[in-house]
């Protein structure tokens, strides 16, 4: 982590990482769990791509491969009661926050077994019980809502429960969203209202096909923007889960203790295209290979092997388990019932007293048409 006042740190050379002391204190089991969490996201996304290509998943699809360390490391720094919100590339975050893979997969299949009964789809995964407030499709528009979640946490803790503010909200956005007005309004609001909000920009370098320095001022160091909103900005190496955790733990703890917002430039890389239909003509194979060579899963594996007794055999078993879990998720999605208009199309627009909605202006007229001619009035 480096704050805006210090020079940006470069990614460390592999195998020579000097981690923060808090990493050395973590139990081995914790690190192994993070490896499994990242592996689960990776495997889930690989199978998601296959299902999309097999036309089992409709709409659009934005996979998280390459960015796994961001979700896993950031959420490890939060408490379960801390609200979280993100944008459309939300599969990895949903899984890292604890939604079962089968509910995520069925959601993308548009089936009843999905976390929103197949109504939200790939970009709109939600889980209220895990304080995961979505998955949102409009770039940047989720950041003010995140500010509202922070505001609500503070208000409930301080005004309703008459205690100290104890929770921190975390709002993710991509680097493309930095140029949306909603982001700036939310940053200013968080700064001026002292909201306990950690804004994490998952900076993968591209707003769809537009490289950050072509579309964003101070693209070389976006954490400098935080200063304009009276908050601290940080740069974090998002390709290494141990660094993500160590840095985010300090940032989140500070936001909680000070009841103040923080901004994080989380340097990461998506290995795949923006969406499934992206030919990636805007970057080179060499660049992709360079990032893939610092793969977050490999880096954690290397650390585990160097510092613990974690074995290839254990990894093999983990991999087998994860594959089975994702396979079961696919099976759940495939076997889950299809939505029916009667159950799924007309409901949940308003609280039920105002529904259901028929989609025709005079439903009685339809019924009339369906009658045999002899019975028509």
């Amino acid at each position, binding site marked *: 982590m480096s704050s805006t006042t210090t020079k940006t740190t470069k990614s460390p050379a592999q195998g020579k990482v000097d981690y923060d002391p808090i990493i050395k204190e973590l139990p081995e089991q914790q690190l192994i769990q993070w490896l499994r969490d990242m592996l689960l996201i990776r495997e889930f996304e690989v199978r998601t791509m296959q299902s999309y290509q097999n036309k089992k998943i409709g709409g659009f699809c934005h996979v998280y491969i390459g960015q796994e360390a961001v979700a896993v490391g950031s959420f490890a720094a939060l408490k379960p009661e801390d609200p979280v919100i993100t944008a459309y590339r939300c599969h990895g975050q949903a899984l890292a926050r604890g939604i079962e893979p089968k509910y995520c997969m069925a959601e993308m299949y548009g089936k009843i077994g999905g976390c929103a009964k197949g109504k939200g789809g790939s970009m709109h995964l939600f889980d209220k019980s895990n304080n995961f407030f979505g998955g949102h499709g409009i770039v940047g528009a989720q950041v003010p809502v995140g500010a*509202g979640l922070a505001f609500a946490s503070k208000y409930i803790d301080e005004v309703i429960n008459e205690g100290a503010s104890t929770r921190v*909200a975390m709002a993710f956005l991509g680097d493309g969203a930095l140029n949306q007005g*909603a982001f700036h309004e939310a940053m200013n609001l968080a700064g001026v209202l002292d909201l306990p909000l950690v804004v994490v920009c998952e900076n993968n370098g591209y707003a769809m096909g537009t490289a950050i320095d072509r579309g964003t001022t101070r693209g070389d160091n976006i954490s400098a923007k935080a200063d304009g909103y009276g908050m601290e900005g940080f740069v974090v190496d998002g390709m290494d889960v141990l660094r993500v955790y160590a840095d985010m733990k300090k940032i989140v703890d500070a936001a909680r203790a000070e009841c103040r917002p923080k901004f994080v430039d989380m340097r990461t890389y998506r290995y795949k295209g923006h969406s499934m239909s992206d030919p990636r003509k805007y970057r080179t194979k060499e660049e992709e290979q360079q990032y893939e060579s610092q793969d977050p899963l490999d880096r954690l594996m290397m650390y585990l092997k160097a510092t613990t007794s974690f074995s290839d055999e254990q990894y093999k078993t983990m991999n087998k388990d994860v594959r089975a879990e994702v396979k079961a998720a696919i099976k759940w999605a495939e076997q889950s019932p299809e939505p029916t208009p009667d159950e799924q199309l007309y409901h949940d627009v308003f609280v039920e007293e105002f529904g259901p909605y028929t989609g025709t202006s005079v439903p009685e007229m339809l019924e009339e048409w369906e009658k045999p001619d002899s019975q028509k009035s």
Partner: protein
Amino acid sequence: MANLTLVQAINLALIQEMEDDDRVIILGEDVGPNGGVFRVTEGLHQRFGSDRVVDTPLAESGIIGSAIGLAMAGLRPIPEIQFEGFLGPAFDQICTHAARMRTRTRGALTVPLTIRVPVGGGIHAPELHSDSPESFYAHQPGLKVVMPASPYDAKGLLISAIRDPDPVIYFEPKRIYRAFREEVPEDEYTIPIGKARVVSEGDDITIVSWGASVVQCMKAIEASDRSIELIDLRTIYPLDIETIEASVKKTGRVVVVHEAPLTAGFGAEIAARVMEHCFLYLEAPVQRVTGFDTIMPYYKLELEYLPEAERIATAIDHVAAY
């Protein structure tokens, strides 16, 4: 009972709902010590403090976006937007998040949000401060849209809106903020959302209107010797077609009056519904008296644009003579 203006009735409803429920929180530009542009939140900051009556930066998307987050987290935020024209910057938040959250999450997350917005012309203000955008929001599934035309309804509808589990856009016709007083009960009461009010009964013609135009309709009716039934919609969406239908089946002649421009104004929806529901009862085509398909003019021509009593009277004659 107290004799209150529409502003005072809203102010009273806000105070009572805030006293009853500490989840209710007000936010907006200058809503605090200043009491808002139209002084609707006057005295609330003094009474409830900065934690519950929150002055925000000038940032409508941020105000509505954060109010949506507050509502998703279980609070009952009431953001104020200063003028209906300033809803534009918040349109994305309203239609992208507020309206869709219940559907998108199958009811797991809802947005019990009341957006208070002064609306309409007649106060010598320019465009963007005199517009009537209610049909923009009525068209978005997932939003309820209300607009009271009297102090009594203003209080009861606002309490319903605040307690409603879904997002409500509560339009306040600024022309009648202080135009007249009405007896308003001290106690809390609700006016159901989705229910129109029959202002005056009649047999010859039905007039359907809402907001400040209702007052103009009353003037036109007073000057007419025909038996006219006036319906104040109170809620634009969900539309109370039953009340309209019952009236039109009696009168067979309909005039719809609103300030918004003609094309795709909510009057078009009412005309279509009347045709669907009462086709065989109609004695004349539905007449609309509306603003023109132009940008709201500056104040010198304001009354030319607004559907004033004289224009309504002409429409009454037309529909009667058809």
